[in-house]
């Protein structure tokens, strides 16, 4: 019993850490990325003893600011629902992770532990059900604020979520037909196969149209550009969270990024093989663990060395720019990189090429988790990248796209897939 509790706690802890760790990084990436895309420098002021980490300290400063801020509330709000809404949004964003497999399994003390918090039979349906609840948070928040802007924002959010949830469901229906299950672990495992011996059987390969429909509808579900109708600044101030401040606003703000992470994880799990590394299934990883680990350590050492060299060069160039603690930053970071590189190379002394069988299994597990995290990070970044590239759709355009184009396309996709599956699995 204790083991089960510990196991669940550890897995929940990992997912929680992944999300809450990614949220500030995404906020940072949003700011810095948008700045670079627009030829600006972006945040670079907040720092501790001159260490600014290219603006990575800013989200921390923001959190402290939001914690310390006065909570300004509208006088005529609905008190209970107004307080409930941000919590609801955050809870919904966090719950979805329960059914997402972030790795295959891990061997601890001879026990095989599945790397998923709750391996539900109806995994994907759970995701869709929980995601629908997210609408409540937005709609209630907008309504309870008793402001026209927030009300318009929540109306729009509700409309877009209802419209695109249908498409989202239809888009992945084809996937369920092909893999024959709702269980996400099975879907990921199924994507480890190869078609004709060389093509990974990823969701995007077998369901390209489904992928496009799905990615468009999750963008709408997360209220991100180009479907950010519910918080469009030029029209309705900040939409449904106009009247929120302090920590309640922070919850809405973080929930947006948490939603992005869950959407990215879903894209990765459904269409990009989840934790699967293409052409390197688990047995191959375990068999070649020693060689790969050695190569990885050497390559890591070299890369860290190059980064350190770049930092030192920068330190030389920036000498005399600021005349304060900021000048020491590149030198300090360069030294850290040198130390890490030395640790990397020093680890070679442990003879990684002669790794044990248990070690090889652990290595394979962590390599797969790493692959999953990299995929999630990339699709999270894609959200940001698209936001700073594509202009927003108008409200009517969003509605027309959803109902007149994506919904029929989803139906066609489902029909074709069903016919194909029927033809292949002719009883």
């Amino acid at each position: 019993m204790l083991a089960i509790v510990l196991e669940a706690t550890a897995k929940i802890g990992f997912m929680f850490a992944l999300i809450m760790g990614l949220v500030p990084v995404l906020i940072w990436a949003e700011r810095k990325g948008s700045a670079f895309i627009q030829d600006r420098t972006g945040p670079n002021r907040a720092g501790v003893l001159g260490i600014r980490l290219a603006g990575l300290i800013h989200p921390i400063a923001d959190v402290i600011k939001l914690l310390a801020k006065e909570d300004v509330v509208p006088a005529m709000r609905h008190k209970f629902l107004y307080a409930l809404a941000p919590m609801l949004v955050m809870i919904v964003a966090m719950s979805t992770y329960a059914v997402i497999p972030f790795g295959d399994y891990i061997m601890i003390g001879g026990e095989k532990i599945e790397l998923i918090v709750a391996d539900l039979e109806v995994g994907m349906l759970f995701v869709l059900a929980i995601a629908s609840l997210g609408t409540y948070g937005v709609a209630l928040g907008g309504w309870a604020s008793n402001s026209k802007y927030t009300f318009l924002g929540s109306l729009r959010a509700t409309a877009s979520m209802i419209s695109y949830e249908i498409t989202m469901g239809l888009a992945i229906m084809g996937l369920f037909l092909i893999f024959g299950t709702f269980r996400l672990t099975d879907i990921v495992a199924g994507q480890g196969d190869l078609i004709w011996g060389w093509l990974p059987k990823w969701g995007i390969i077998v369901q390209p149209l489904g992928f496009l429909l799905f990615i468009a509808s999750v963008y709408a579900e997360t209220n991100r550009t180009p479907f950010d109708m519910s918080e469009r600044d030029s029209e309705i101030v900040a939409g449904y969270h106009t009247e929120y401040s302090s920590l309640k606003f922070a919850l809405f703000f973080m929930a947006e990024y948490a939603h992005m992470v869950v959407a990215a994880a879903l894209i990765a799990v459904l269409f990009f093989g989840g934790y699967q590394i293409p052409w390197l299934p688990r047995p191959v990883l375990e068999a070649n663990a020693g060689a790969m680990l050695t190569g990885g350590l050497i390559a890591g050492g070299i890369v860290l060395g190059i980064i350190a060299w770049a930092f030192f060069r920068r330190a030389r160039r920036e000498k005399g720019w600021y005349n304060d603690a900021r000048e020491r930053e590149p030198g300090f970071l360069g030294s850290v990189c040198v130390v890490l590189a030395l640790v990397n190379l020093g680890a070679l002394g442990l003879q990684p090429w002669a790794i044990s069988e248990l070690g090889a299994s652990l290595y394979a597990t962590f390599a797969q988790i790493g692959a999953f995290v990299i995929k999630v990070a990339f699709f999270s970044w894609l959200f940001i990248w698209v936001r700073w590239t594509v202009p927003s759709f108008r409200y009517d355009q969003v509605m027309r796209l959803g109902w007149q184009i994506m919904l029929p396309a989803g139906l066609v996709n489902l029909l074709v897939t069903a016919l194909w599956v029927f033809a292949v699995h002719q009883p």
Partner: protein
Amino acid sequence: MSYKGLPDVVTTRRRNLLESAYFTEIARGLAVTGRHLIRNLFNTDKMPTVQYPDQKRDYGPRFRGRHRLTQREDGSPRCVACMMCSTVCPADCIEIIAGEHPDPTIEKYSKEFNIDLLRCVYCGLCEEACPCDAIRMDTGIYEIAAETREAFVVNKDFLLNNDKDGTL
């Protein structure tokens, strides 16, 4: 007449099927923004941003900064309180109270000369209007900060001794 060879009437082309499917166009857009991102990522020094408090831009000699009142050779202010500047001022930010000067060849002088720097729009019309070259905006000072609104109303003594790093 076309301007710089540009056509007078711009005709829009209908989008073809590929374009109206968005995805290829979005991919092209992503390529553009990605190119900017990568370029800036590896050339942070060459960005046009001026790191303001640490770096400052050089302005030309005609830049209009905070005002100052000029002086005659004997150190007395040149202003004769003719009110040309306060008349022409579109922001109505100059307040002058005239007085009788003890020297009858000068006759009139400004007893008080106040400029509300918060109201001023830095248009430079007061310089243009002044018949005595008494007010100039050549200090080059543009960093103007104070803690109260009252502090932004600067008086004659301040304007006469308006050195480069003078704070309010």
